[in-house]
């Protein structure tokens, strides 16, 4: 199964890197929103330090949805999805491969946006780089796994671009809230401790619970 996941992952990454459709659009969108923030709040004020985590994760959630929306859409032409499933690729392998591909795309967006945000708003987000990377990995996984499952659910809908955010955002709020809170603390150079650790536990718990649920239920969505 892992080998098949790896193949799907490679295929999706290769397809995306050749066309760069979703990646470019999502990156351009993210940068535009980054600029829009400067009109919403005074970019030179201290206030932005306290809300940087919130702004960033709203941004990543929005651009993440643009990315995951594409992942099953790619398989729609020529009925690729059916062909894959008929050829006994387990639905869970398919989902896992796509989730890892989406995770990589989201991380790529973050890798560009975090330094740009740091420079434009004069905040050093990288005071605790390992914590920041950990938060990014955990929260991006949450967006990727739930995004991929819900993209599989909505792929046949006429209004899929509209429906995916409507059902996805309420579900990922716990992970986003945790990521926002932790990014805020880490960006001022404070190591999360004591009461802050509940957010770390929430983030890890969220990932474990929803990954298990997704792996258990994806067969129902795609195969039956």
């Amino acid at each position: 199964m892992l080998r098949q996941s790896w193949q799907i992952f490679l295929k999706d990454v290769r397809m995306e890197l050749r066309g760069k459709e979703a990646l470019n659009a999502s990156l351009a969108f993210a940068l535009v929103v980054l600029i829009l923030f400067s009109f919403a709040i005074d970019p030179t004020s201290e206030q932005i330090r306290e809300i940087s985590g919130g702004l960033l994760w709203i941004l990543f959630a929005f651009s993440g949805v643009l990315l995951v929306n594409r992942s099953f859409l790619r398989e729609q032409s020529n009925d690729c999805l059916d062909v894959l499933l008929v050829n006994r690729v387990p639905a869970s392998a398919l989902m896992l491969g796509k989730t890892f591909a989406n995770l990589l795309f989201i991380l790529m967006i973050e890798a560009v946006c975090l330094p740009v945000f740091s420079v434009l708003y004069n905040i050093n987000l990288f005071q605790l780089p390992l914590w920041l990377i950990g938060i990014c990995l955990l929260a991006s996984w949450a967006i990727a796994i739930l995004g991929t499952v819900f993209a599989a659910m909505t792929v046949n809908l006429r209004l899929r671009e509209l429906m995916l955010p409507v059902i996805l955002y309420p579900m990922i709020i716990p992970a986003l809230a945790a990521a926002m809170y932790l990014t805020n603390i880490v960006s001022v150079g404070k190591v999360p401790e004591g009461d802050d650790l509940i957010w770390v536990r929430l983030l890890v718990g969220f990932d474990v619970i929803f990954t298990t649920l997704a792996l258990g239920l994806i067969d129902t969505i795609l195969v039956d």
Partner: protein
Amino acid sequence: MFDKILLAVGLTSGLYLVRNLYTMLLVLPDEAAQGMIYRIMFFHIPSWWTCFLSFLVAGIASAVAIRSKSNRADSLAVAATEVGLAFTFVGLATGMIWAKIIWGIWWTWDARLTWAFITALTYAGYLMMRNMIPDPSERLRVTGVLNVFAFASVVICYKAIDWWRTQHPGAVMSFRTGGGNIDPAMEGMTYHNFIAFLLLCVVMVTLRLRQEETLREIEGLRRLAYSR
């Protein structure tokens, strides 16, 4: 016969509510700190319990539906979700009225309130999604999975007062605190109203379930007519 039982349950619920209103307004005294507004809790807390239970039933029904491809279970899931959502809005509205009087604001973004709001949005998304999938078997699978996922927000909402320090009051019922936080007469009143709400909920879910079954039959007949 079944109709008569349903009517009887509905009437019992109505009479029970009237009896409860009499007790809470004319028998029970005002609360020491909050005055008379505390009585809205007799509607607020039971409506949340009823909505949590409805969502639990909907979640289990959805799991059964996707496991055994049962259309009936799917109908039960949608019926319970709709009724649960109605009780969610009752809970939100009563909570907001209480908050305006006690806190001076309609809403605050603490964990409990936020998750209550998220729960309402999640289940509203489920109902919206159902309208968008015309094929019944695909609808059963996809929205069934969504309903199982959605139950996570109910669990978080229920446990939020334990996990975070919230402005929303903590647990007061003796089955969660071991007693001593609420007068037994007031606690008893809450349970009485819960039973009345639950009976009402059963009637509403049953009626909605029947509608859903009829709708399915009509859909089937329509497909048959088109295929001829």
